[in-house]
């Protein structure tokens, strides 16, 4: 404490110090990898929102096939070339962005809803409820998720045939999103539990209880907002994971045939890797950059919100 510091004169406006969120944002701004991540994620979001404007061709335009221009290398008409079906690679990759984003965000919405509710309940209630919920969470952690998802996607695709559900657009993609969410919540639940346990005993929560706060107010007004910064980090990480998982599912041919997805582009085009490498490299790169973006962002966010855990 420097003793030269003077007390501020009364009339001067009281200086505002930034709050937790703004401090976090400032630290994120200074964090190089976090900003790279944010830029990549930002690019993905912009591409997804503006895909009809950005894409030079319709994603289902196969007219290059007629002109004997399938498997064409990048040229003036097709900046990233065309693939073996005559699709414009650039347009297909651009139209893959909304799919990837829908999968990432959708799966994480489902996962964070389940994870926060179960983890929060577990941490807040404690005792036998905690014990049961955590064993349940561990059960979900040891399931070979990928195989179960593949089986369920295929099974559901068969069950649906002949029912009104058959006509729901992007049903298959929706199933994948739901399943990724349903199997992706355990890490979120574990963190939510830890945060609720910590905050349940925090002095300000204790204080709120002493001034007559009802349990609902304690959970929603005091505990949850304070748990959010940590939860956001795992959610960002999970979003990248979900995008990667959907790419893998689609690459194995279990994806939605009607949706344009990067994994599916790889699945369609890896056979012509030697003839038209651009048709595989472009979606591969898109997956790589998106997942990298979310991971770097998560890294940056974790540094920004928990600056003491590092160094």
């Amino acid at each position, binding site marked *: 404490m420097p003793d030269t510091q003077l007390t501020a004169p009364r009339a001067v406006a009281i200086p505002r110090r930034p709050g937790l969120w703004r401090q976090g944002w400032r630290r994120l701004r200074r964090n190089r990898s976090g900003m790279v991540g944010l830029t990549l994620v930002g690019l993905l979001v912009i591409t997804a929102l503006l895909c009809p404007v950005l894409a030079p061709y319709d994603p289902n335009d196969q007219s290059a096939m007629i002109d004997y221009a399938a498997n064409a290398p990048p040229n003036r008409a097709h900046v990233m070339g065309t693939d073996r079906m005559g699709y414009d690679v650039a347009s297909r990759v651009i139209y893959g962005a909304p799919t990837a984003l829908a999968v990432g965000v959708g799966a994480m919405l489902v996962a964070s809803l389940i994870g926060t509710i179960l983890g929060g309940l577990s941490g807040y209630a404690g005792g036998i409820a905690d014990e049961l919920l955590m064993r349940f969470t561990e059960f979900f952690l040891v399931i070979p998720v990928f195989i179960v998802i593949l089986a369920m996607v295929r099974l559901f695709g068969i069950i649906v045939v002949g029912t009104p559900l058959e006509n729901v657009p992007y049903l298959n993609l929706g199933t994948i999103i739901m399943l990724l969410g349903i199997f992706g919540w355990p890490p979120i639940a574990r963190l939510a539990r830890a945060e609720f346990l910590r905050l349940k005993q925090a002095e300000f929560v204790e*204080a709120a209880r002493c*001034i007559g706060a009802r349990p609902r107010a304690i959970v929603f007004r005091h505990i949850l907002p304070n748990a959010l910064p940590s939860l956001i980090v795992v959610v960002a990480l999970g979003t990248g994971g979900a995008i990667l998982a959907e790419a893998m599912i689609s690459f194995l041919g279990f994806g939605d045939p009607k949706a344009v997805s990067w994994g599916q582009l790889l699945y369609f085009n890896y056979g012509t890797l030697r003839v038209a490498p651009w048709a595989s490299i472009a979606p591969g790169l898109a997956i790589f950059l998106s997942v990298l973006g979310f991971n770097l962002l998560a890294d940056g966010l974790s540094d920004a919100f928990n600056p003491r855990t590092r160094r």
Partner: protein
Amino acid sequence: MSEALLQAEDLRVHFFTAAGVARAVDGVDLSVGARETLGLVGESGSGKTMTSLALLRLVPPPGRIVGGKIRFEGQDLLARRRRAMQAIRGKRIGMVFQNPAHSLDPLMTIGAQLVEVLRWHERLTRTAAETRAADLLALVGIGDARVRMRQYPHELSGGMKQRVCIARALLCNPVLVLADEPTTNLDVTIQAQILDLLHDLKDRLRTSMILVTHDMGVLARMADRITVMYAGRICETADARTIFRTPQHPYTRALLESVPRADRDYGPTGRRLPAIRGRPPDLVHPPSGCRFHPRCPEAGEDCRALLPLEFPIAPGHTVSCLRRGSPGVPT
């Protein structure tokens, strides 16, 4: 003293830990009259904080209130339903905590945290609640109340945060304020200000107060009556003047002896500041007989065997010590 505002009888709080049952509060009687300040004093671990939390029925697990009676405004608090307790906490009984830095939610503005309390308890409109909150902030000596209400706790100094906490405790005009070491975490200069503020507000708002502390100096300034606790039991209760002038229990005497006094020389030439020898007892395995006997200068054989009960040696002055005539029960 007429009818007491709050009266606890034979209050018992036990902690059920893996090491055994810790009897943190073991048969405590205390009472606070209207507009009275009761000082609850004792070393760390003497059960004074648990006693005050038990009065609100907020003993944290694995602790539980296992026995006793709490009468407050003519009702038995231990028999009330949980919902009814929520209506008492913050409304009829306000609480000020030890650590102002941690007892405000870091993500909510000061104003929101004050308005929140009023909206739970008083059904005020938002504007009415804001006006009341601003009035109270002004009352506890915070200038620019309207500006401060838009700020977050980290933007305020420690003393100011404690003022906010005091304002929060007083928002609904409680009849009793529980202050648990309200000045322990503050600078000495701020301590004096906060104590003056509490004293002044208590008089102006005609509330009673239970002041939990380990600082005899604070009590000398604030308390009307003092209850001295040791190892979950009460040693001595009397009005403040009696406690300071003619303390009877050996523990009270030792506690007062260990406070430095301006008229004594403790320097290299003078005497050492006396400390109470030994350590506070393990509450899972408390000593037999009188809890204080292993550290007591006056202890005899009987102190080892008999647990002294509270005994009135003068009107309004009770002591639990076999040497002062208390009856004992074998343990």
